């Protein structure tokens, strides 16, 4: 505002200045209101966007979780189904593979493998006999002793299973390939197909061998009746360091109640 002579100002001049200042004040207020409105609109837009985003992320996350579950479930089913092909043809029950899987995980944990690896072993375990799909029914379900020729054919399921699965680079299938290949190796080197000895046999193979035999001995098979527990335990003690890794045999007896609990919970 211009400098004014306060003593000699006329009423008209005062009124003119008042009007001018009032006018400016109105301009400021009007513009301030406009800005406030704009801010409110922007804020509302932002909030809507934010809420929308949260909702969208929530829905997308839920979908991903469901898809993941679906994938995991499918994977489990495929693995069990694959395993069951071999098992069914040899008239073994579906629960055999599930029990062996549980025993294997337990052995792995007690042996000192971490949870992730033990779980991998559990998931891969049902595929250890997958190579049996290439073995003729007549041999698989034969009552009584194999001829040498038949036994050689039967033994081929390890190599066949390995060749089938080892093509994959997935950790799960890599693990399954080891199991398929080595679950008939013996700690003393008298097993097949490679005749590996002691810790030359992968820990997965040693674990599966024990778990598989423990369950097989306790079940009826086309070639034998189920053994009672004492006979099984005597066999395990006798085969400590022979068929089985002695450390695993110790683990087995130290935690026997837990293994029997699995067997009781998953009876055929």
């Amino acid at each position: 505002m211009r400098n004014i002579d306060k003593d000699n100002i006329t009423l008209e001049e005062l009124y003119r200045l008042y009007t001018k200042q009032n006018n400016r004040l109105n301009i400021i207020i009007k513009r301030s209101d406009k800005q406030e409105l704009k801010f409110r609109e922007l804020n509302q837009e932002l909030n809507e966007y934010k809420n929308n985003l949260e909702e969208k992320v929530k829905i997308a996350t839920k979908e991903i979780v469901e898809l993941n579950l679906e994938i995991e479930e499918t994977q489990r089913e495929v693995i069990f189904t694959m395993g069951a092909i071999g098992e069914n043809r040899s008239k073994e029950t579906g629960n055999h593979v599930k029990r062996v899987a549980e025993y294997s995980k337990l052995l792995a944990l007690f042996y000192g493998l971490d949870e992730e690896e033990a779980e991998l072993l559990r998931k891969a375990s049902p595929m250890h006999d997958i190579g049996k799909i290439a073995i003729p029914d007549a041999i698989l379900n034969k009552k009584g002793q194999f001829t040498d020729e038949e036994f050689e054919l039967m033994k081929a399921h390890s190599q066949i299973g390995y060749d089938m699965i080892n093509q994959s680079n997935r950790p799960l299938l890599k693990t399954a390939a080891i199991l398929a290949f080595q679950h008939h190796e013996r700690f003393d080197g008298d097993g097949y197909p490679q005749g590996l000895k002691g810790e030359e046999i992968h820990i997965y193979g040693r674990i599966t061998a024990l778990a598989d035999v423990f369950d097989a001995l306790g079940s009826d098979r086309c070639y034998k009746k189920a053994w009672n527990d004492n006979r099984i335990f005597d066999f395990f003690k006798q085969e400590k360091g022979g068929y089985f890794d002695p450390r695993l045999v110790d683990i087995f007896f130290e935690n026997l109640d837990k293994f029997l609990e699995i067997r009781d919970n998953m009876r055929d």
Partner: protein
Amino acid sequence: MENLLYAQTQHTPQIEFNEKEKTISITGNSYPEDSFSFYQPIIQWLKEFMGNCSQNDTVKVIIFIDYMNSSSLKVYFEFFDILEEGNDKGVKIDIDWYYQIDNDIAEETGEDFALDFETLNIKLISRN
């Protein structure tokens, strides 16, 4: 008289007043916490500068403010009052009021100034 230079901040515009060149430029945003304190030395400089200007001088004023708060707007009325006084005493003053093309509030503010200071030469220029 020293030139006046303020670097731009988030809340305050860049200010470049050059006494010799007789150019005055203000660009940026203006919403300082205390506009009156912030602009006090700037207004002071302008008063002194305008007092030193004579009839044949031409002063170029460039203002490009995206957003100003209400108290800044009040200060700019005072700013234009000083320019108007200079204009009244015969200094030639060219004012370019810039605004972003989609910023209607900045455009209307320029129009309000042009209306209120009808003797001043205020040119409104839009920018993309």
